[in-house]
């Protein structure tokens, strides 16, 4: 084993049932589950949902052509349900992975939080619970709808999601208070609780992560500056053409619906590429701090780092290539990229679990 059960400060910072341990396990778990959910969604729901929406739009055009207002309204009810189905699943994926990132961040920030250990542990537990129930609530919005709800537009699933979000905000407020208290202290705890080693894994994850974020920022700036407004204009124009074609029944509605679908796909892949490359960069940087707690051989630690960084690049690049003639093949490769990240995460989580087990048994024996 190249990873030693390190220094006393490292051990202290990762003590059994400590806030940091809870946040590291909870954070990596939330990210892995959130990404796995995203992969399943991309393979089994996303394209099918887009196809159904396109068909519904075509039916709406036909209904408009034949002057059937009632049918138009019924079809739009269906379109609304399809969009809600898609939107809530995307949001569940995003919020679960982001809650995981925040949990890892809080794990890093624990040495700067001047609160009693029991309170820190309670806050950590509440944050992980909030991070779990927020996406679960969002996911259920589409299925529970307004059943038994006393509110006009907000259902019980939304109440669950919003309450979980409020809980996370509350935890952040207390954590900030703890940091302010730390800053006010004259005698501060030792900051060396942050492992300061400079291993290959750490350097690769930190530099690679920052570079991925930088590339994501550049792409995002290009998208916002060049594409966003043009796409918004195109969407309105396509819809108008679609309506004109439906009114005159000249038979070109199919082309306009296809144009609309192509535009929606173009927007989706460009935004997905931008957000995923940045999120993976952030994840890589966060995981660089977890490396001292990954109890695996140096070779396996490097393997997981390479798998993670490769997957982080493969997913956004091949998501973009879905617009090329490669089409669904590129989509499949992108999903494999996502899976690589998930597998690397699980590999690292196993390493952290092994570290905890070794450390706990050493403490027990001592």
């Amino acid at each position, binding site marked *: 084993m190249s990873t030693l059960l390190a220094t006393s400060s490292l051990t202290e910072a990762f003590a059994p049932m400590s806030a940091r341990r809870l946040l590291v396990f909870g954070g990596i778990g939330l990210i892995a589950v959130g990404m796995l959910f995203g992969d399943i969604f991309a393979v089994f729901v996303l394209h099918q949902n887009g196809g159904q929406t396109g068909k519904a739009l075509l039916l709406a*055009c036909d*209904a*408009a*052509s034949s*002057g059937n*207002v009632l049918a*138009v*309204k019924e079809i*739009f009810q269906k*379109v609304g349900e399809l*969009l809600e189905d898609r939107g809530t699943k995307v949001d569940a994926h995003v919020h679960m992975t*982001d809650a995981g990132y*925040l949990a890892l*961040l809080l794990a*890093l*920030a624990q040495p*700067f939080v001047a609160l009693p250990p029991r309170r820190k542990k309670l806050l950590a537990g509440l944050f992980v619970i909030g991070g779990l129930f927020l996406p679960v609530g969002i996911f259920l919005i589409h299925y529970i709808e307004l059943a038994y709800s006393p509110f006009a*537009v*907000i259902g019980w699933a939304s109440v669950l*999601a*919003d309450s979980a*979000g*409020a809980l*996370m*905000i509350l935890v*952040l407020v207390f*954590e*900030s208070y703890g*940091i302010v208290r730390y*800053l006010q202290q004259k005698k501060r705890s030792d*900051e060396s609780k*942050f492992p*300061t*080693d*400079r291993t290959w894994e750490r*350097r690769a994850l*930190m*530099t690679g992560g*920052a*570079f991925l*974020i*930088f590339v994501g*920022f*550049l792409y995002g*700036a290009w998208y*916002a500056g060049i594409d966003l407004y043009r796409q*918004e204009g195109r*969407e*309105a124009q396509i*819809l*108008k053409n679609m*309506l*004109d074609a*439906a*009114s005159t029944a000249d038979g070109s509605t199919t082309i306009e619906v296809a144009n609309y679908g192509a535009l929606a796909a173009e927007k989706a892949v460009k935004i997905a590429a931008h957000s995923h490359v940045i999120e993976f960069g*952030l994840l890589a*940087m*966060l995981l*660089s*701090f977890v490396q001292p707690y990954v109890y695996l051989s140096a070779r396996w630690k490097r393997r997981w780092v390479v798998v993670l960084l490769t997957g982080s690049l493969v997913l956004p690049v091949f998501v973009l290539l879905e617009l090329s003639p490669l089409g669904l093949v590129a989509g499949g490769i992108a999903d494999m990229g996502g899976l690589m990240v998930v597998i690397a995460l699980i590999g690292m989580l196993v390493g952290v679990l092994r570290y905890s087990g070794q450390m706990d048994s050493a403490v027990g024996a001592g």
Partner: protein
Amino acid sequence: MSPARKMLLLGGLTLALLGMLYGLHYALFVEHQTLDRMGGTLEESFVNAAERRPAEAHAAVDAYASTKYAYVRQVDIHSHWIGLAMLLIVLGVAWDYVAFSDRMRTGVAIALLAGSFLFPLGVILQTVSRNTSLASALAIFGSATVTIALAAVVWGFWRFAP
């Protein structure tokens, strides 16, 4: 704790809180109504087309586009603020690995923090008034500042020698 690290950690936490509060407020009081309005105007455009009223159908599409313009940006503000907050906190923790002089590091930290506040603020202002160039200028300036500062950070990480 160095001033740069303090700035990044506290700024990041403040930004995360701001982004979450904005998201909670938006989810509770704005999002459902906005989505209803978007769906409603789109449906209205097709109903108008079915009733052979093209001018009204086009007007409904314009109303849909206008609502969606605001919706996209309002959701972006929430996600970008929290995303940038997370970046600031991570960089705050990793700041020892940015191999520059203290002065340079403080300058980069100020640029990161300022850009992270200004970029989403510019996007918010775009939803308040669509035709103001100040909002777009602020968003562009903010995003450019963060991007350039991040390029410096990548270089700083690369320069770091153990």
